[in-house]
């Protein structure tokens, strides 16, 4: 791991009192120890200084809101009355959500499926696309085309694809009919609604993932491939033994951040299935996702306490999944990433 050089100093500061008396060792060693001490001190000061804006920011804009939210999750606050008047209800919000609220449980299941599906299928597709366009002539144009959906607000994406999925007027069913396949209900169907939304989400997000993969691909030094070529390796071996392992940090980064943001999906599901007049009659249990459910719990059903408790539960789920992911993707590999 990165750290002080090879002067032999161990981690952790050695308190001054424990320095051997000057007569006991050559002056050079004492000087080196003092220097390494001041190096540690200097790096500590520098470290915290460099981190100070971030730390300050999180103290103000994270610690306080989250602290407040934890408190709220133990009350029955409904946001209309002042917080001081909210009643303390202990863990009952949590127990209700986990035992009596089948819509919440359904939303957890749906969101899990959504997150795993969009992140991992999306990454696979994005990697394929990245390999495809990385060294193609005019790759800038292709990259632009693929990135355009990322740049579009989710509300617009939802409307556009809502139109594509329309049972009679949408492009998709028209295409199916043209080739003789049976048209589907897509967003109104209990079984197909979530996969349809996931497909749209992948479409909208693949461009961003491709860009990160391209950066990662370009990070792989050419010598590895040249060496492998000299040894007679076929493209598939190159991919499996060089490209993939070298992309491990990129994959780790994309998986973690992808899962974290996928678990909070809101805009897309709202505009395609559960958001009012554009939506049809999708059964809520089939597409409800956690963030949307918590939002309606807080702002429609006026249960800020319960919604915040749900958000805490969501946090622990994301946290747990991330830990699992970090463990899985850290095993072995060419380089150790912590």
């Amino acid at each position: 791991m990165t750290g002080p050089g090879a002067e032999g100093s161990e981690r952790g500061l050695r308190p001054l009192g424990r320095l051997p008396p000057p007569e006991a060792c050559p002056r050079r060693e004492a000087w080196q120890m003092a220097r390494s001490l001041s190096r540690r001190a200097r790096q500590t000061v520098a470290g915290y200084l460099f981190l100070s804006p971030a730390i300050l920011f999180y103290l103000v804009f994270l610690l306080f809101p989250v602290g407040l939210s934890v408190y709220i999750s133990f009350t029955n606050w409904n946001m209309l009355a002042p917080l001081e008047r909210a009643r303390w209800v202990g863990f009952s919000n949590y127990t209700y959500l986990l035992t009596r609220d089948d819509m919440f449980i359904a939303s957890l299941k749906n969101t899990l499926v959504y997150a795993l599906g969009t992140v991992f299928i999306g990454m696979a597709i994005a990697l394929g696309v990245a390999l495809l366009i990385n060294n193609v002539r005019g790759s800038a144009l292709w990259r632009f085309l693929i990135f355009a959906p990322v740049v579009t607000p989710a509300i617009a994406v939802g409307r556009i694809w809502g139109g594509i999925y329309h049972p009679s007027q949408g492009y998709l069913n028209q295409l199916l009919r043209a080739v003789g396949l049976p048209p589907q209900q897509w967003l109104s169907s209990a079984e197909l609604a979530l996969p349809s939304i996931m497909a749209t989400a992948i479409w909208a997000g693949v461009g961003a993932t491709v860009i990160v993969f391209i950066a990662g691909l370009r990070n792989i030094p050419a010598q590895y491939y040249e060496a492998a070529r000299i040894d007679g390796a076929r493209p598939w071996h190159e991919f499996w033994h060089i490209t993939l392992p070298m992309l491990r940090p990129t994959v780790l980064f994309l998986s973690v951040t992808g899962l974290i943001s996928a678990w909070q999906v809101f805009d897309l599901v709202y505009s395609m299935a559960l958001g009012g007049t554009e939506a049809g009659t999708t059964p809520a249990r089939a597409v409800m996702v956690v963030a949307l459910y918590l939002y309606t719990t807080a702002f429609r059903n006026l249960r800020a306490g319960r919604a915040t408790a749900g958000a805490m539960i969501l946090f622990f789920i994301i946290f747990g999944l991330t830990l699992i992911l970090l463990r899985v993707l850290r095993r072995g590999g060419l380089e150790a990433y912590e």
Partner: protein
Amino acid sequence: MGRNQQRRGWTLVCTAAALAAVMAVALAGPGTALAARTKIVWQVHWTDFQIDGIYQGDRLVARGLRQWVEEYERTHPDIDIELQSIPMEEYLNRLIVAQAAGTGPDIISVLNTWGPQLVYDGVLDPVPADLVADVRSQYIPVAVEGATVDGQIWGIPFEVGNYALVYNKKHLQEAGFSGPPRTWDELVQMGAKLTRRAADGTVERYGFAFLAGWESAVVHPYLGLLWSLGGDFLAPDFSRATFNGPEGLAALEAELQLFRSGATDVSASVWEFPQGRVSMMIMASWYESSLKQAFGSEYEATVGVAPIPAINGKSVNAAYSWWLGVNAQSRVKKEAWDFIRWFTAQTLPDGTTRMGTYQAENIGSIPPRKGDLAGHPEQLDDLYTRVFVQELANARHEPNVLQGAEIKTILWHEIVEAWHGRKTPQQALDDAASKIDDILREFYG
């Protein structure tokens, strides 16, 4: 590393910091200026032409809210009224966020569903006695009922919404029907006949479509059926849900008949009525202007309105209402109520009120004040609204119960599960009732 490079590093950071500081100062924006005029903020759920007015070319044919407000400002130069136009879906959460931070609006447009909670939490200022008396004496019973929470009137009703059957006259004529269905059985049969399918089975035209997409859309028509069959939604003292009894089951079964007969399915959408892809629907009173715009010159010849087909000999339709209230946190309560008085209670020579005129001419909805109902014949006695006004006599207002939105949302989801056939109707209703009982026990137990 030379000192030059060190200096460059510092310069970089210092420039960034300076830039940030300059931006912060420059963008810090104006502080609260000393107000020369009293400002009243009204958060409204109206948009587009409802605020700006309806024009034909350059001519203003129907005033928007802005023009009404400007008239008040002209006659009261010390008052400045700011309109915050928020789309319906976001109205409540904007109100909540602003309220939590202490920047809530002075005048609130209250949907009766939110009413009980706003009252319970002390968000609303009690209505002045003279206005209470005005409401009790001058407004239709359905509206008075709708503005009442726990026996007291908490707002000035300005809009009552109810439901009727809206149908495509041309479709019915082509199919050989002499008029709209009068009973539910007729509706089911006609719906099935009017549905047209293509060779591969896709539906080109639905005989019937259910209003859907939010809780009231699905629950209100259901309540109408429930009440027609003699059942009730909740116990009168709100101690438990009663819709999962035999009448409630029969009401849901009646809806399912339309699915089973092929008159409709889960993909049918009332928003395709203007395209001619739906022949009949149960629709609310606020859809008129959209229909007029959609059909243009064909409007009169195409759109027909009739009472909801009777079931068991009765046709009850559900009603909801909007009221005006003043924020208890407001610092300009007196001025706010004065404006409300001017807008809703002060009668013009012909017996109408300004709010009533605004509702009838611009919004196209039904003003709940007797003087306004009588005083706007062109708008209220037209092809569309006439039937809704008529059916107000058969309307029953939904109960003003705490957590109304949550309760209706639960019922909404369960009814849709039954529509999809994922649950039997009894199961769906029982599941809904059990959850709703929990809520009622929590707040009324």
